[in-house]
């Protein structure tokens, strides 16, 4: 039976001694959604995933996967979730096939069943020819793909991806996203993603920003970007004080980094060429561009006065 919410959490909190890793987290993630939890390193993203997948228990609060309690039914939860860890959980000395057969048996898949599923997944990832190669002989991107295949062998209801593209180059990162998209399309699973490559989360149905263990701000990526601004205006200049005096009445406070100023432009009819002329020699460079999720993060989660990324 499909549940309305694939993941629910109420007041989920994890403390390590005095340090609060996750602070009073509430989540309601609908079935089939592609959800992104975004934030800097150490914000509490992985700890949240580990609590939701029974790898660590919350200090207080509760969570449910497909309406099953994480605290009361850990084994049932593990049967219905897939988790791709931040760094590989595979045995580098075994072949791709041995790793996946091993994982399949852990999920109680019979060898014949496992064989079909492994073939199917390796076909999605284009790794059929690597099936009997040792994992150590694969590239970083291929290993990550095998890791994801391992996470979805048992067709989980919810797939957790903890920084799935960390340490990968751009082509491999794009390939991983194509695989995830294909898996979502074909298997209809709910995907819970954490990443600090914010621009990658634009495909999510909903994202939330987390900082110091607390949810800060969230929504549909496109709506967040739309609400932020029409353009982001970036100016490099020597005399930032003077330029800001001229611009802040029109655009508000900028994000200020040394000789670099960023403004939110909310009026789509702003004439940038005229602006450039009026500033004249004062600017070294001036450019305007469409905002993205990085801008949403910088403007909403980090205080605009400082623009400091924690």
């Amino acid at each position, binding site marked *: 039976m499909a549940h309305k919410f694939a993941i629910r959490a109420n007041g989920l909190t994890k403390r390590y001694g005095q340090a609060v890793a996750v602070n009073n987290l509430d989540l309601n993630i609908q079935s089939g959604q592609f959800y992104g939890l975004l934030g800097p390193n150490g914000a509490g993203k992985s700890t949240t995933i580990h609590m939701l997948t029974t*790898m660590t228990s919350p200090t207080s609060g509760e969570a449910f996967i497909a309406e099953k309690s994480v605290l009361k039914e850990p084994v*049932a939860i593990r049967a219905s*979730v897939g988790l791709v860890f931040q760094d590989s*959980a595979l045995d580098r000395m075994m072949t791709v096939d*041995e790793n996946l057969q*091993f994982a399949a*048996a*852990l*999920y109680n898949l019979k060898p014949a069943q496992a064989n079909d599923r492994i073939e199917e997944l390796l076909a999605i990832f284009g790794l059929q020819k690597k099936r009997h190669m040792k994992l150590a002989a694969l590239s970083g991107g291929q290993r990550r793909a095998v890791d994801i295949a391992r996470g979805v062998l048992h067709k989980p209801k919810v797939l957790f991806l903890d920084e799935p593209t960390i340490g990968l180059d751009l082509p491999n990162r794009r390939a991983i996203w194509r695989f995830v998209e294909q898996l979502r399309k074909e298997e209809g699973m709910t995907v819970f993603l954490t990443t600090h490559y914010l621009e990658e989360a634009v495909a999510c149905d909903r994202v939330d920003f987390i900082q110091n263990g607390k949810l800060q701000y969230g929504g549909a990526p496109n709506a967040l970007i739309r609400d932020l601004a029409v353009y982001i205006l970036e100016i490099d200049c020597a005399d930032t004080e003077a330029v800001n005096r001229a611009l802040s009445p029109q655009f508000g406070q900028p994000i200020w980094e040394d000789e670099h100023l960023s403004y939110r432009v909310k009026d789509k009819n702003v004439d940038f060429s005229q602006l450039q002329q009026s500033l004249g020699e004062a600017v070294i460079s001036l450019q305007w561009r469409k905002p993205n999720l990085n801008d949403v993060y910088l403007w909403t989660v980090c205080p605009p006065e400082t623009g400091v990324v924690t």
Partner: protein
Amino acid sequence: MKNWLAVKAVAGRELSKVFRQRGRLISSMVRPLIWLLVIGSGVGSMLQGSQQEGYLGFLVPGIVAMTLLFAALLSALTLVYDKEFGVMRMMMIAPIEHYWIVIAKLIAATITAMVQALMLLVILVLIGLIDWDIALLLLIPSFATAICCAAIGGLIAAWSRTLDNFAVIMNFFIFPLFFLSGALYPVSQLPELLKYVVLINPFSYGVDLMKHAVPAAESDFSVLTDISVLAVFSVLAIVIACWRFSRESVHEPLFHRATGKKS
């Protein structure tokens, strides 16, 4: 049993690794044979006449037990090895209670130890030190000892966080367990204090049970005492190892490496 496939997979992975490394399997035969040769001949030369020949026979249960101890302990320690290399997380996220991982590993440890004991017994028969019937008879106490050694390994593994402790384990567990067990000398001739140490060492009862199967070796305890101690200790140690391993705080370094938090 719904966890059978998972248990079989964990144990099977371990065993396939053992049999893949044939070199390791063969070298595991070298250690007991060197002991037999060096200690057997060396110490034996200090004895007189008939005692000299008898000492080699006396050593047989001890070196078979030593093979079991090393094999089972090292195999059980793969619980720590898998943690170190991250593979443990693949098992932790599986839909089984975590104690099954310990049970599967200990089954593999027992089988690995028995295979090595079997190989050694064949060698001992071939070099004429024991007869086939004694070799066969030794299989039963070997099995009980293998389980006991695996259980000791499970206990150590459940308390070890990293393989850095390996040298500590060798020095503080394997060697004392072996030397203070009656494997090399009759317990009755030890000084009083050491005798007590031997009495609280569960491995001693495995060695002693094996001595019952070898006419050249004089045993110190009754068969019933040996079996009772081995059974009670093994069950207790396995239960404690499973309990300890099921506590998540034991695995926190596995999941919080990135943030550098310590449990």
